[in-house]
C-alpha cells in the first residue's frame, strides 16, 4: 500500500515490464551483482576473482 497516492494517467505495461525486469527477475543486474560478489571469495585464480569483484561492484551502482 503506497504511503502517498499516485494517479497514473497513462499506463504503459510494456515499459513497466521492462523496468521491473531490470530491478529484479533472473536477468536483473542487482541479482547478478550479488551473485558475482558472493562468488568472488571462492575463485581459484587472480583474474577470475578480480573480474567478479570489479564487475559485481559496478552493477550495483
Amino acid at each position: 500500500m503506497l504511503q502517498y497516492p499516485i494517479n497514473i494517467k497513462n499506463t504503459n505495461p510494456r515499459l513497466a515490464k521492462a523496468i521491473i525486469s531490470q530491478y529484479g527477475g533472473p536477468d536483473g543486474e542487482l541479482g547478478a551483482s550479488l551473485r558475482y560478489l558472493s562468488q568472488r571469495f571462492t575463485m581459484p585464480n587472480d583474474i577470475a576473482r578480480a573480474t567478479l569483484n570489479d564487475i559485481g561492484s559496478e552493477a550495483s551502482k
Partner: protein
Amino acid sequence: MTEREKRLKEIQELDFRMLDLQLFLDTHPFETKAVEEFNSASKKLGAMKTHYERLYGPLMLTGDNYTTPWQWIEGPWPWQSYRLGKEEA
C-alpha cells in the same frame, strides 16, 4: 550546460575511461601501455576532482579539509538541476 555541469561531465568521462581500463587489465594483466594509461588518467582525475571540490564542494567523502557547516548535505544533488539556487535544492 553550466560550467559546473561541464566540469562534472569531464570527470564522469575520465572516471568511465579508468573503469574501462581497470576491467581490461583484470583480464590482460601484462599490457604495460594500459597500466601506464591508467596511471596518467588517475593522476589527471585526481587533479580534476580536487579542483571541482574546491569550487563546488565534496564529490565523494575522501578529502580531509572539510569545514563547518558540513557541506556534504548541501544541494543541489546530482539528480537536481545545477541551475537552482542552493536553498531551493
